[in-house]
């Protein structure tokens, strides 16, 4: 895009999406409002909990441990995700140029460093008992 004037044409689909995105919910909600009969009662207005009678107030507090688990999970999830493109680069001709001591691929060293940092974090989480459910 360097140096050339902005072509507005590129943006017309996006504007169309925006306009349609705004129209569809309005039309859908309005249609429901007009067509459907509105006869509320207690059972209908209650909170949906799998079809059963709700047992308590839905506004409960989540245990902070959910977050700890979620954070640790996300970190290692991303790590695995990151390994896939890494494999592709590792096997490429390009990385053959970056070999030290004759046989160690730089990509391996970088991945070992990356995982080592995460492992220290995992050890920390385990030792601090962040992963023990209480």
């Amino acid at each position, binding site marked *: *895009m*360097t*140096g*050339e*004037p*902005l072509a507005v044409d590129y943006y017309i689909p996006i504007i169309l999406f925006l306009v349609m995105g705004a129209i569809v919910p309005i039309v859908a909600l309005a249609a429901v409002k007009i067509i459907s009969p509105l006869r509320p009662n207690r059972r209908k207005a209650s909170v949906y909990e799998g079809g059963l009678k709700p047992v308590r107030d839905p506004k409960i507090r989540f245990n902070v441990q959910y977050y700890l688990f979620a954070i640790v999970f996300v970190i290692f999830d991303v790590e695995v995700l990151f390994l896939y493109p890494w494999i592709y680069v590792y096997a490429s001709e390009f990385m053959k*140029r*970056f*070999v*030290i001591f004759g046989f160690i691929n*730089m990509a391996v060293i970088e991945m070992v460093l990356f995982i*080592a*940092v995460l492992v*220290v974090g995992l*050890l*920390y989480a385990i*030792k*601090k008992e962040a992963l023990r459910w209480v």
Partner: protein
Amino acid sequence: MDLGHYAPLGAEALITAVSLLVVLIGLLSKGKSSLPGYLSLAALVVAMGLVFTAETGTVFFYDSLRVDGFSQFFKAVFILVSLLVVIASLTRYNGRPGGDEYFALLLMATVGMMVVSSAIDLVSLFIGFELASLSTYAMAAFDKTKKNLEAAMKYFLYGAASSAFMLFGFSMLYGMTGSTKIAEIASASLAAFNPAILIALIFVIVGFAFKMALVPFHMWAPDTYEGAPALVSALLAAGSKKMGFAAAFRVILIALLALKLEWYMAFAILAAVTMTVGNLIACWQNNVRRILAYSSIAQAGYISIAFVVLGVASEGMTGPNNLPLNQYALAGGLLLILGHAIMKTGAFIGTAQVASIAKNSEDPDDISNYAGLGRRAPVTAFCMTIFMFALAGIPPTAGYFGKFVVFGSAIYGGLVWLAVLAILNSALSLYYYLRIVSYMYLREPAGPRISESKGYVFSLLLALIGTFWIGVLPQGFFNWAMQAAAALLP
């Protein structure tokens, strides 16, 4: 392929490795070992040596980090600040539960700042910014008192908002120019100027201005510096704030090349308002840490005069001795940053000392606790006095020399009104600095004489030596700053 190629990044590698090691030691010893503090101290000293001996002018990781005079100057400032804070923290945190985490976070924050100072790519700049910010968010709440948590929450919310602004600006710059490299963005925007680039730059500058605490983005600073642990406030005011300047100086290059408009006027107003508001509000504060916070806002205003002069300095404009004016102004900004980092760290360590003896008072940082400090804690009081004078810009201290060069560059750049305003502001600032000094020496002591903590005294004295060294023998530091400026603005 040769690993020696990465030698100039040895300081970062060392500090990162030691920060992980500190975490592991803390886990194995259940936080009781006093090794983390001393290990961090040793790592920072060695890293300082590595920064000074590193070969400059090399680029790493596909043009995303550059080791040059500019980055080494800032790295030296960051390591110096962390070193002073670590020495002062030894008695307070080392060997206590959680001490290992404190030192690990401090080292990680230092690495983040160092990455920012050598980043020439917007992505690595952002990563460094976030590493330093996230570590300091946690540190601001470290003692877990109610005040700490409030300070950390405010810091976190403002910091998150500023990151969002910055990132939005970065994404727009990338969208306009198709590159995240600062140099490529600069040349692309020079080739085809687009008003959207101006908007993007405003977003980026607002993001940095939050970190630099320029008015009107300064609201978080006094509350955070007051509420966070005093030693962490030292790191925030002296280290993390300078990181904002390092990033702004790097990115301002784009603005310099792309926008030869009257944009410097916006920065001139920002600088003038920042120093005036900072100094005026400081006069009404009774909490010493709030006074220091507002004084650091005012100092940010003085430093941003360098941006203004960079904006007006055209080809061939020269300062004294035929030095190029833009380099002269940037060198002045750098000297002010170096001096301010040392003085502010010292002053905040002084408040930590006072707060530790006035624990039972309702507000440990209230100015009434400083009454008669000259007799209660002579070393702390003396050092604090010198730092106050240095912050006001009295010769022969670091504060004087930095201000001299910056204000001088404004006059050479034809911005006499700004220089006059800055000098008037310095005179005004004497009021609240001397108020603290008069409390320390002219009032009856608020309590008996106390024994000063060794760690605090040692780092206060180190900061004192630094303050005088720059003030008395400025030539070497000036040459160093000129070299750093020449690396950024050839």
